């Protein structure tokens, strides 16, 4: 069944299904145990329940879940190696198919097809019936498509998840007890006591892992959406893991409801996509929206990978679209690319279109709807990735257990929004991309300012996460596709490390989260402190650490964009300034926690290092935080630790970058130079198409060119800002040259504004919650006064009518029925006497009847002749 040799992509499917299997097994076991538990005292069920551990939380689910995700990591690692190997072959074959001898081309094409089929597969999930209109979808599919991005994401997710599972084994240890006292919940008799929920935690973790992996695996938007909602529900369940605490249940609700707003947008986007394209498959969507790169003869298109706009004229079969870069309609390419000529799509040309295109015909759709679809999908990402203005749920989500924060609310789920934006990049028009960029820019700045003043160690990290996600969005919006996703990967490691470190601190300090009560913990927990320091250095962008590589690319990309579009210079300044802020608040956190004198002796004295099962993952993550972005192998670059362009991971991500990025954001340096030297005449990724003249080219947008050109400059600038932030942090919180309290006193307005998180919660409360409460109060009044009155009265009338009717029924109708019954009974009684029960009499009757019939018959026969 699982033929890995012919479909190695199934390795990733297996990796996805392993956590699902673990989830199902645990769930079934829990269901059985629950059923047994409710069986009566002394019964077999109860005995079985006691034999299987009774009320003591079972531990095997944890091991099962950990083993499942570990195995998934092994699967995805195997698959990744395989994939790289295959990809190498694919590249050489593509080369041969393009330039080889004619006889070899055929062979290369076939081999290519076979290799590509290794990593793609899908089945129909829900069939929707047949239709002639190809715009209507026929089936919702389940499928997988492995490219560099998803393969690397798989590795990252499974690795981080495995480590976090291991960490949780230690962190959630107290849930293994029969009774857990929740110090934050006060019942009638002191602290609230409940049973441990060790297994349940891992149950949810398993479901989450499955959903997240499925999201990465998916080859279509609908599957993404389903996984999207699944990770949402897991997030909800895990934030509310301590649901007895009102803060936790409120936070869970908040996260859930906030995400619904985003999902509403997502659904709108899905509807538009389904209506106009009839498919959710990414590849099919992109090939319908974007022009092909080259035609059937290998000639590159002038409008390669572009969204082609134009004006529609004519009716029916004569309908045409005349290409115009500002036109209100978008050309949709055929569902099945048969033979395709570059001349069909030339700037200023036209093309026949149909309202209901068949397989090989062109269609069209309004441009604004495409924008709306992009915005809708992005709104979903805003909700999931906690972007402004829907970022308010993420800091509150810190009510969940810390490993959950690390896995879901820092490393994986919140990054899903970024991942989806990256995946759907070809669907986004320039306007949408600008919106994305600005959303990211605002988010990263707002969150960083708030993080500066937070006292809760996890909140600092939460706002830091929001801010870093903003960086990624910004990068995607300004054309740094690789930069954004690269940052996603590096961030996953060091942010997971930061959270796990904070978890270790919280564990070591007996659930103390206030930074101001810590201090001087370094001698007590050296491993935690050192590993966290690695992460802090990484997130700050110190050269040589992984964050430096990714953040530099983002800043450079933003700088390139701003240099082409001076009106959007804010998009460069915000991330630059925020780089300093990031350094500042991260070091503030570290210094407050580990350096200096102990501020709370009660906390300090009881503090202790976490056990090995928790520090082990920290060390592994620290190694990755430092080195994940390094060049590989080391000797491939002269200065692997210093040259920010030598990152191996980044190069791998380049392979997955869609052509649309190049089309939308100009040429990169090498292409630009080729064009300048006249080697790229008319056949390149660019817009709008122009001749080979250099002067014309210069006028065009060249974000990517400048991004590469400025990369060192941007890196140096950012480094300068980082050093400033570093200096401030040490000055304020280590050397105490400046007093933070004094600073607060000097700017009370700003301090209050920041401490209240820019008043977002208050704003939402005033704008949405209060009006909603008011309206529901009205509704309740209408309900109780008007509608209930009506119903009460109509009920009384009905009762009176029914009484009359009942009397008629009893006397007249029942009387008739009884009469019939009496008559039938009497007749039956009379006939009864004929049934004697004696066989012999029956036989005699039979014979007599036969005789009679004979006589009668013979009479008739004689009479008729």
């Amino acid at each position: 069944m699982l033929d890995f040799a012919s479909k190695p992509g199934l390795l990733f499917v297996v990796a996805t299904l392993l956590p699902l299997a673990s989830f199902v097994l645990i769930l079934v076991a829990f269901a059985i145990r629950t059923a047994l538990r409710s069986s009566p005292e002394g019964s077999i069920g109860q005995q079985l329940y006691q034999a299987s551990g009774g009320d003591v939380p079972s531990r095997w689910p944890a091991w099962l879940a950990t083993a499942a995700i570990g195995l998934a990591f092994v699967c995805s690692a195997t698959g990744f190696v395989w994939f790289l190997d295959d990809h190498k072959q694919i590249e050489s074959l593509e080369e041969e198919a393009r330039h080889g001898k004619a006889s070899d081309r055929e062979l290369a094409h076939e081999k290519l097809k076979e290799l590509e089929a290794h990593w793609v597969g899908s089945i129909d999930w829900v069939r929707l019936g047949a239709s002639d209109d190809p715009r209507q979808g026929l089936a919702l599919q389940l499928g997988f498509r492995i490219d560099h991005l998803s393969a690397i994401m798989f590795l990252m997710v499974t690795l981080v998840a495995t480590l976090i599972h291991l960490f949780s084994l230690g962190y959630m240890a107290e849930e293994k007890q029969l009774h857990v006292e929740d110090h934050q919940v006060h019942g009638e008799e002191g602290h609230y006591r409940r049973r441990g929920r060790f297994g349940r935690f891992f149950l949810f973790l398993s479901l989450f892992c499955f959903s997240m992996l499925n999201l990465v695996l998916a080859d279509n938007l609908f599957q993404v959406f389903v996984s999207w909602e699944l990770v949402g529900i897991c997030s909800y369940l895990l934030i509310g893991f301590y649901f007895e605490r009102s803060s936790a249940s409120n936070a869970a609700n908040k996260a859930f409801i906030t995400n619904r707003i985003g999902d509403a947008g997502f659904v709108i986007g899905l509807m538009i996509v389904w209506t106009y394209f009839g498919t959710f498959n990414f590849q099919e969507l992109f090939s319908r929206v974007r022009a092909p790169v080259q035609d059937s003869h290998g000639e590159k298109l002038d409008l390669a990978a572009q969204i082609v706009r134009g004006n529609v004229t004519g009716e029916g079969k004569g309908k045409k679209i005349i290409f115009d870069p500002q036109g209100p309609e978008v050309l949709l390419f055929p569902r099945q690319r048969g033979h395709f000529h570059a001349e069909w799509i030339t700037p200023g040309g036209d093309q026949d279109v149909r309202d209901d295109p068949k397989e090989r015909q062109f269609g069209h759709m309004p441009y604004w709807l495409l924008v709306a679809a992009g915005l809708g999908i992005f709104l979903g990402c805003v909700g999931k990735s906690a972007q402004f203005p829907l970022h308010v749920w993420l800091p509150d989500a810190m009510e969940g257990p810390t490993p959950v924060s690390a896995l879901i609310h820092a490393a994986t789920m919140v990054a899903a929004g970024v991942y989806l934006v990256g995946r759907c990049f070809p669907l986004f028009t320039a306007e949408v991309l600008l919106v994305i960029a600005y959303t990211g820019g605002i988010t990263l700045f707002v969150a960083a300012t708030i993080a500066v003043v937070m006292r809760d160690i996890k909140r600092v990290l939460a706002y830091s996460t929001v801010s870093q996600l903003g960086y990624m969005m910004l990068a995607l919006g300004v054309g740094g596709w690789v930069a954004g996703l690269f940052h996603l990967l590096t961030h996953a490691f060091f942010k997971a490390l930061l959270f796990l470190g904070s978890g270790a601190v919280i564990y070591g300090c007996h659930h103390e989260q206030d930074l101001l009560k810590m201090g001087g913990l370094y001698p007590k927990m050296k491993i935690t402190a050192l590993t966290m320091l690695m992460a802090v250095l990484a997130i700050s962008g110190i050269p040589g650490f992984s964050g430096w590589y990714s953040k530099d690319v983002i800043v450079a990309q933003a700088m390139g964009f701003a240099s082409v579009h001076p009106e959007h210079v804010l998009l460069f300044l915000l991330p630059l300034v925020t780089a300093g802020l990031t350094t500042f608040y991260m070091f503030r956190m570290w210094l407050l926690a580990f350096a200096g004198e102990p501020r709370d002796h009660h906390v300090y004295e009881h503090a202790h290092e976490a056990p090995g099962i928790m520090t082990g993952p920290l060390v592994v993550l620290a190694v990755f935080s430092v080195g994940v972005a390094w060049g590989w192998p080391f000797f491939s670059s002269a200065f692997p630790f210093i040259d920010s362009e030598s990152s191996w991971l980044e190069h791998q991500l380049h392979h997955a970058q869609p052509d649309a990025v190049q089309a939308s954001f100009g040429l990169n340096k090498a292409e630009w130079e080729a064009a300048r030297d006249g080697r790229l005449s008319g056949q390149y990724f660019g817009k709008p198409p122009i001749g080979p003249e250099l002067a014309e080219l210069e006028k065009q947008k060249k974000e990517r060119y400048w991004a590469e050109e400025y990369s060192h400059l941007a890196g140096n600038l950012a480094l300068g800002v980082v050093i400033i932030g570093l200096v401030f942090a040490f000055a304020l919180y280590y050397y105490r040259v400046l007093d933070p309290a004094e600073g607060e006193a000097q700017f009370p307005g700003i301090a209050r504004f920041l401490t209240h998180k820019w008043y977002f919660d208050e704003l939402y409360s005033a704008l949405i919650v209060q009006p909603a409460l008011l309206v529901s109060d009205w509704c309740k009044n209408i309900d109780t006064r008007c509608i209930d009155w009506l119903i009460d009265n109509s009920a009384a009338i009905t009762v009176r009518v029914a009484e009359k009717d009942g009397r008629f029924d009893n006397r007249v109708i029942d009387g008739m029925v009884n009469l019939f019954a009496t008559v039938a009974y009497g007749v039956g009684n009379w006939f009864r006497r004929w049934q004697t029960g004696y066989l012999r009499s029956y036989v005699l009757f039979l014979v007599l009847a036969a005789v009679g019939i004979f006589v009668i018959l013979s009479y008739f026969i004689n009479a008729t002749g």
Partner: protein
Amino acid sequence: MPEAIGLNHYLLLGAILFVCGAVCMATKRNAIGVLMGVELVLNGATVNFVAFAHFNPAFAVEGQVFALFVIVMAAAEAAIALAIVLNFYNNHLTVDVDTAEELKG
């Protein structure tokens, strides 16, 4: 004998068997006796069928086939009837059909 043996001879014999069977059913109180009556009736029918088959060429096959079916059906009927009788005997310790009158009106 005025005429050769013809169809009517056989039909009369069949009628004798039939009537004997009917009378047997009507007079026997032993359930198995009743069963024997049934067999006689069926044999009367068999004789008639085969006689028709012999004397009417159009029935040459049909008559014999139906006679065969009658024989097989009789076997089935006897099996099931005896099973019922045995069951009845097990419950009532008698095979008198007059005691089996519980279903009378």
